[in-house]
């Protein structure tokens, strides 16, 4: 089967991935095993830090408010860490956030589409994340167990596959203020810091 390669846009295949990595235009580190680079994707690993959703005294997570009257979003998650190779349980219906073990830096004309490797998607795990062109940091992944069974995963497991796509124009990642810069651990949502919220609330109150 011929490899899919494009010059200006589209899915980036292995030979070009290797070239970008070798030139450090696409940064993926640590890349513990070169077999992580496949024909059209790169396997990424579960990192060592986790945020697990927990139920507390509040009825809901408030994404509309960032003042001190409400519990911060991160208060709805508990932090934990695992040694590489140690297991983590994801209970039925639970959401966890973790970072990829690998720190990524994407070229400004490349974005990444992250999904589960099929071995994991077929047991009831769900994940879908897009990484913007120019992003740098460990990718924060939201994983949901939509099965009716607890699932045990290992820190360091090759859970994710990343497909990289070229776009015609460079996008300046830091051209606007970003909430998540060079993150190396999972960071809970900052949805309540969106600039639009103040305007929307004002609109509603007028």
């Amino acid at each position, binding site marked *: 089967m011929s490899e899919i390669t494009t010059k200006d846009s589209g899915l980036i295949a292995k030979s070009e991935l290797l070239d970008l990595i070798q030139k*450090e235009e696409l*940064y993926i*580190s*640590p890349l*513990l095993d070169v077999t992580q680079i496949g024909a059209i994707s790169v396997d990424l690993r579960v990192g*060592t830090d986790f945020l697990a959703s927990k139920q507390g005294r509040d009825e809901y997570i408030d994404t509309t408010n960032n003042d001190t009257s409400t519990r911060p979003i991160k208060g709805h998650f508990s*932090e*934990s*860490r*695992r*040694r*590489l190779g140690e297991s983590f349980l994801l209970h039925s219906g639970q959401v966890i956030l973790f970072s990829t*073990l690998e*720190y990524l*830096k994407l070229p400004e004309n490349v974005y990444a589409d992250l999904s589960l490797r099929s071995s994991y998607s077929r047991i009831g795990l769900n994940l879908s994340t897009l990484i913007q062109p120019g992003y*740098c*940091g*460990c990718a924060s992944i939201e994983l949901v167990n939509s099965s009716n069974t607890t699932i045990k995963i290992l820190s360091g497991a090759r859970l994710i596959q990343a497909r990289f796509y070229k776009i015609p124009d460079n996008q300046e990642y*830091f051209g606007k203020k970003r909430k998540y*810069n*060079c*993150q*190396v651990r999972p960071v809970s949502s900052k949805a309540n810091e969106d600039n639009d919220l103040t305007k929307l609330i004002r609109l509603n109150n007028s």
Partner: protein
Amino acid sequence: MDYSAIQLQLRQVDEAFSRSRINVYSDTKKKCHFNELHSLFVEISKIELSALSPGDVEIHYNLLSFVLNGLEYLDNSTLNVIPYELVSCLELALNDWIDDDNFIIVTSLSNKHIEYLLSTNFNSETFLSTNRYIQGKYNLKITNRLIRITLPKSLSRDYLSSAVLYHELGHFIDLEYNISQKILLKKYPPHIPIPIGVLPSDINKEYRHTLEFFADLFAAQYVNQSTNFFLQRITTPSRDGDSETHPSTAKRLQIVNDFIDGKPLEILDEFNHVLSPSSLPALKVRHSNLDPKISDFKNLTPQKLKTPQELHAIFKLAWDVWIDSETNFLKDFEEKERYHIINNLVEKSISNYTIQEKWNKA
């Protein structure tokens, strides 16, 4: 002291163990230590306290204090809490100085603003005598000694500030091998009267200052001037001066600068003249130089580290980048974000190095 003091302690220790049972540690040595402390507690719980002699009451009170203190540090050294990357660096530094594998670096996270210190309550003498006693009485043994370091909770992921933990490790090495004490004994031999005009308090002050100089030089071997930068940050120049326990910041900065610049340094020679006959390594530069202008940080990526010398150098790199952050590649970020980015990159640099090392050995 009567045995009722031990009764109270036993309740405290029992409560502490019930909370600590679920702890998950970053390595098996900590778990082993926990189990050994628990075994000791179980044996002490079985004895008839009222039958203890006053001397034995005091011994057991001290044993339970040892257990409680150990638990406090183990609780703060669980996988979720321990500043793992920092401790990894310290462990590598420790390996340069101690062959014995029976030490565990543990941390306690303090609520105090700037509290970095080494606990000296349980030194090697205390540890040996404790083990002798419990081996004789209970046929038990504590395998590992804890190196107990306190750092501020709010700064546990602040790698620029926490480079000073190398200074605290330096204190441990000094006290373990009595380095500063040997220097003072050379200067004031016990069989010779103290010179007129010199008070015992002067000698004590000189000893305390010598401890600080050793710890500063020890740290500088690894983290270059990182501890200097931190000291400058927390010192008010108009209030700087010698205290009973510490030399002035100005003196400390100068000694480290001279060491790094390779200038002749009398106190360095004094330390090395004591270290050498004790078959200990000399104080010397043990880090590489990472140029911030060509470092990987410029690309907002972790620094690739290939050796322990480069690993230790990450702290100096972080300070160099921070000091110039208003004009370098970080200049377009807000100040708070710049600091955050540097700390994140340090953490990931260390993490990548340790993970790669473990992967290669597995």
